[in-house]
């Protein structure tokens, strides 16, 4: 191997007792694009921050053109030749696009009170290169989302770095914008820069990367070409939960004319990013519906819109009542209870107190009865009743979160990504509990999952969400044939 432009060896980072990154190593040659992929919480973003010096590694080395830069302050690393494109930016409100690019070209000196006249020309050249030449005089507040991303790109390459790190290059972009951004990134490769793309999944960057490295729970699980990584057994297990199989099951959904939940043409914007684009789904009484999609596809946004936690356009009706104008808490009391991806437990309160709060709106008798039923469904919670929620294991926390949501006696239970970061043994327990829930109660469930193996067996119907849109709908039996192949 010739001398690598960027060489990372044995990189390790601990936050308290948690190992976020363990012994990660890779190298990128000049003119090469490496994709660093992994689901939420896999440690990929931490790796990027460690390279940039935003976090300090506990161990390991980062070499730029052979020189050790691990542990340097960020501004020195930037000047040594590494540029970073952040996913979320906070541009200055009173400055124009041109001024933002000029900022990135300024020397870090306290004595240069006036900018070099050449800066203006250089800034304009960079602007034309990334496609901002028509909006030079505008303020960031008036820019379209893609142009804000272009501005980030422009700033990152202003100092002509030899290594470019890009965080989620295509998040929130339309297909044509994705194409033009890909072209820009290929341009970096042509110039001989080393590029690191960090993303949730291989699929979105597969066409662009020369090699990919997959991470899970802080460790490397696969490396190679995009195809090899996509076909890798362990990667498929992480994303899909193993091979896709649909259990034949009797649909329990009633065929009532009007659905329990009707989401019609709902769109959500985060700032300027389109997080949900004209999405319609229905859930009938006693039905189990799964929405599957990779991280970042828009599942959480959809559920938050239903729960009244984010503003949206379109209509959402529950039991034939429109939910617009109802507060999130009132929606929860009306019977739509969400158990979020982040669990949102009361960490410094005991398991019993968490459950108690879930049942606060019930009568005393109903609460006792519901609690007894739930402790039967999740026996481990009875053993842990006096323990603080924060001290539970990940799987136990997930069970507590589900049990706490069920304490509210929901008509519709929304489960967002319950398998996130859990070990296979726990998944099995969770799966059994869901099956029991489904067969022994009248509950209606809307499940959001990346893990298809977990989502399929329970479901009466499946929706596939990709890039903020519903792209497929059907029974689980048809999923493997029609949607499974292109899923990852």
């Amino acid at each position: 191997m010739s001398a690598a432009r960027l060489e990372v060896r044995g990189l390790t980072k601990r936050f308290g007792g948690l190992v976020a990154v363990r012994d990660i190593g890779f190298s990128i040659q000049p003119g090469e694009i490496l994709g660093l992929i992994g689901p939420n919480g896999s440690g990929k973003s931490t790796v990027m921050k460690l390279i940039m010096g935003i976090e300090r590694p506990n161990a390991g080395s980062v070499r730029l053109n052979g020189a050790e830069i691990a542990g340097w302050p960020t501004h020195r690393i930037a000047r040594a030749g590494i540029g970073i494109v952040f996913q979320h930016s906070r541009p200055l409100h009173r400055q124009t696009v041109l001024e933002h690019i000029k900022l990135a070209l300024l020397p870090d000196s306290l004595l240069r009170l006036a900018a070099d006249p050449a800066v203006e020309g250089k800034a304009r050249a960079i602007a034309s290169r990334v496609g901002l030449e028509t909006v030079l005089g505008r303020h960031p507040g008036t820019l379209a989302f893609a142009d804000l991303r272009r501005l980030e790109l422009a700033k990152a390459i202003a100092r002509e770095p030899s290594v470019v790190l890009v965080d989620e290059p295509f998040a929130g972009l339309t297909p044509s914008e994705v194409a033009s951004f890909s072209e820009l990134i290929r341009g970096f490769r042509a110039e001989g820069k080393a590029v690191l793309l960090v993303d949730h999944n291989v699929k979105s960057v597969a066409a662009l990367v020369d090699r990919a490295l997959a991470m899970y729970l802080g460790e490397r699980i696969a490396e190679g070409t995009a195809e090899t990584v996509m076909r890798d057994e362990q990667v498929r297990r992480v994303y899909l939960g193993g091979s896709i199989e649909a259990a034949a099951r009797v649909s329990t959904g009633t065929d009532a004319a009007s659905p329990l939940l009707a989401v019609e043409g709902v769109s959500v914007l985060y700032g300027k990013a389109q997080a949900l684009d004209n999405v319609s789904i229905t859930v009938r009484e006693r039905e189990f519906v799964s929405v599957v999609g990779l991280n970042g596809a828009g599942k959480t946004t959809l559920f938050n819109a239903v729960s009244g936690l984010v503003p949206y356009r379109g209509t959402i009706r529950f039991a034939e009542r429109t939910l617009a104008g109802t507060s999130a808490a009132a929606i929860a009391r009306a019977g739509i209870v969400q158990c979020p991806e982040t669990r949102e437990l009361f960490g410094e309160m005991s398991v019993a107190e968490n459950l108690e709060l879930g049942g606060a709106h019930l009568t005393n008798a109903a609460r006792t009865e519901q609690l007894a039923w739930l402790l039967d469904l999740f026996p481990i919670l009875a053993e842990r009743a006096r323990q603080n929620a924060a001290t539970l294991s990940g799987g136990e926390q997930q069970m507590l979160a589900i049990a706490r949501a069920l304490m509210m006696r929901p008509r519709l239970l929304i489960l967002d990504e319950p398998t996130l970061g859990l070990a296979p043994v726990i998944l099995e327990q969770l799966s059994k509990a869901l099956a029991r829930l489904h067969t022994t109660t009248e509950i209606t469930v809307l499940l959001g999952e990346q893990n298809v193996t977990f989502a399929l067996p329970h479901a009466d119907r499946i929706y596939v969400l990709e890039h903020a849109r519903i792209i497929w709908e059907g029974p689980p039996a048809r999923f493997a044939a029609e949607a499974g192949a292109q899923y990852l």
Partner: protein
Amino acid sequence: MEGVQILVDGFAISALYALGAVGFTLLFGVSGVLNLAHGGTLVVAAMIAWLVATGLHLGTATGALAGVLAGLAFAFATYAAVVRPIQRSRAIPREETEIFILTGTLLWGIMCQTALAYIFTTNPITVPALIGGVVPILGVRTPRNEILIALACWAVIGALWLLINRTRTGKTLLAASINPRGLTLLGFELSRVHLLVWAIYGVLAGFAGVLLATFLGASSDAVGPLTASAFSIVVLGGLGSVGGSLVAAYIVGYLETLTAYLVAPTLRSIPPLIILILVVYLRPQGLLGRR
């Protein structure tokens, strides 16, 4: 002899400081608001108690009740007129809400101070003691009222502890301070939780104001210094930590009493300031702070 005197006086003063600070820290813990009109709440309660007790000759007990109610009313006014409009304003960027609430409540406190000075003049007032007489404690003649104040402070703090840890309403407050979003998902309206915590804050500050007026006295000029001392105690103990505030109140109370007796009364406020700076530099989350 002097040692016992310091122990006794320090205990009473610290208890009062603790009561003055717990409401402030509870409000921050549950709703994230640092109320810089805090001194105003205390003095309003003190002044109304004085007005009703001596101005209207209705006795100290009635005055005390009126004072607590005045503290409650002023707390609600602060929330409705200053804090909620800022929290709901669309023109104020989210990341700047904090500085706006600080500036807004500061201005509100100044308005309160000048209004009080206009109505009641800047002369210090003292509400007559609830009970008279002195009791010797280990040879130190201690006013019964001082003992009553210390006991009353601890009774109120104890009641607060029971409320938070033993009632369902209190657990809601605790949950809101840990994870407000989790509480929303369980069907609790955060706006109601906030209203509740402002009510508890008003009652606690009202009590502290009334007791202050019967012990050390109060004047409109005390609005600023009272806010500053509550803020210091709360930061020393750890923002949002009720237990931390109690410990810090005793550290500050005893340090001040010690300095006043052993060095000079004019220097009493300096050692706590130095301790505060050291803590903020070395342990910014405060003595018992979580974050």
